[in-house]
């Protein structure tokens, strides 16, 4: 996974490069927007971590122009400005996610992996969590290499949950995903599907837990032993 870090603070950049490298990323670091443009033109990157305020301009403006020009790379915006207004501005400029300084490396890695797990992302082909792996191309699941057979609706649910592993997937999103599999998507049909999926994962010892957040949605996470 090749990543471009655009950050002008040398000390912070150094530490982030170190942290991301340990998490398995290959990191190129630049300190200015013109250097970033040059790096992106020269090499192929899977994702970009972009600081909002840089010596030669505003990262948000720069990204907006790139998006208008058709750049589809996943961008994560990093900034010291964390007022809610700035957050909206950051996402409006076309960033896929937004992280305010100070942040924990763990959080940055998790957010980046979530970005890369999106359809089209470099991690989007095979989703992994615990001992479970999900091949999104052939729509097959396996636990520690052993094939796990799931129904089409269960696969849909699982994919939605795995693409946002560690984060809440709202009920509405899951219900929309299920629509079409079930003739009546009643108030309890989502619960019934999740409950079946949960039992299968447990029986296969997939090491994946599906948490219910009553009234909110579901969250898939690695089972803590």
């Amino acid at each position, binding site marked *: 996974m090749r990543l471009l870090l655009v950050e002008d603070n040398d000390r912070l950049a150094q530490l982030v490069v*170190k942290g991301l490298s340990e998490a398995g990323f290959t990191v190129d670091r630049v300190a200015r927007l013109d250097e970033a443009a040059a790096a992106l033109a020269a090499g192929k990157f899977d994702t970009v971590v972009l600081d909002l305020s840089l010596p030669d301009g505003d990262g948000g403006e720069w990204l907006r122009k790139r998006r208008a020009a058709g750049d589809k790379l996943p961008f994560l915006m990093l900034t*010291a400005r964390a007022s809610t207004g700035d957050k909206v501005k950051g996402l409006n400029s076309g960033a896929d996610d937004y992280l305010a*300084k100070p942040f924990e*490396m763990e959080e940055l890695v998790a957010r980046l992996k979530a970005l890369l797990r999106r359809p089209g992302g470099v991690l989007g082909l095979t989703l992994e969590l615990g001992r479970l792996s999900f091949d999104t191309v052939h729509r097959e699941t396996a636990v520690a290499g052993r094939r796990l057979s799931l129904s089409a609706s269960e696969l849909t649910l699982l994919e939605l949950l795995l693409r946002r592993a560690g984060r*809440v997937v709202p009920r509405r999103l899951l219900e929309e995903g299920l629509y079409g599999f079930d003739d009546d998507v009643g108030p309890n049909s989502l619960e019934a599907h999740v409950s079946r999926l949960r039992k299968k994962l447990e029986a296969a010892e997939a090491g994946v837990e599906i948490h219910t*957040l*009553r009234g*909110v*949605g579901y969250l898939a*996470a690695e089972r803590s032993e």
Partner: protein
Amino acid sequence: MSPSQPFRSLQFRLAWRLALVVSAVVLATSFAILLHRRSGMTDIPREELIEAIDQVTAGLSLGSDGKPQLSLPANPEYNYAVATADGKSLFASARPPGQAPPGWSAGFLGEGSQAVAFRRLDTAIGRVEIRVGVENRQGWAAVLSRELDEELLPVLLPTLLAALIIGALTLRDGLRPLQRLASVAAGITPAGSERRLPLDDLPRELAPLVHAINAALDRLDEGFRAQRDFTADAAHQLRTPLAILSAHLDTLDDRTVAASLREDVARMSRLVEQLLQVAELEALTLKPQERTDLSALAREVAEALAPMALTRRRDIAVTGAEAPVTVHGNHDSLHQALRNLVENALHHTSEGTTVDIAVQSEPPSISVSDRGPGIPAADRKNLFQRFWRTERSSGRGAGLGLAIVQRIATAHAARIDVDDAPGGGARFTIRFAG
């Protein structure tokens, strides 16, 4: 212009002085009229005296016993005397007028109020001499007081009253711009510090004062803004060093030291975050059309905090958020308030329990309950003060979180209450006004 201190009131003082002036003018005018009347008196008696002689003449008659009689109206306003031709007095008032010169059949004596008229003529009781005069102060004063009662007062009193009422109304009307200014000034708060006193439709005399006040407000606002910006800038500037510190911790070999330092960094980050929130809040004003759906808000906050909660083996649930519950409110600040409450609840609720976010529509409210130790009644009223901390929150946060929630609620004309959650624990509720 406190009504309890009338002498401090400009309106009262002006009205009082105006009343004095008007009364003095009316009194002086009346007095002048009376003086004029009095000098006029000196010319009038001749006709009155002739009338009086006629009256006395008509009043003379012979009684059934053959004696002369005089019948006059009670308390005549003149003095009189009736004598026989040879000078024997027949009738006289208490202070008869002076003697008449012999030989004349009629005539006037004296001047003005001393005037006396006499006539010698044949009457019902034979030839007599009749003298009348007005040398009678009491009578004169009575004439004046009657004139005052009958002619002056009916005109003067209503005029005086009308002048006073019109004066008071004019004053009140003239001072109305002051009251309008006062009501505008009362609305100038830290959150609405850009408001200024209106200069339109203002008496020219007030304009310099209002200009001066507005200029003073400008200077205060500038200072206030500078302080607010400083807080925000300082907080921003602290973020990058904190990020470096945090990233550095990940590279430490000693994991236990790193974990403990990370807690400290997290606490500092939280404080910086809250300082920023406070700075933002100072400028928070609600736009009239802003609407926020409490149900969506509850789900958003739950989604955002659930991963952290689950990591710490706490659960979050949302109830009552199936249908939208829309209130007049600013989404971002309400999000912040709810987030603070839920973070607080997650910190206090015991492991393995659930923090409940409940949305209610009638009246619109949102509440957060935890399964912690609850909050003693004695601590509840201090809970929302800045930097106030109970022992139960020792070691974490600066005590700004709930003060921020309180400020946001106040900006929304909402009330925040704390009570016991059913089944134990604390419950915070933000109630909106319809």
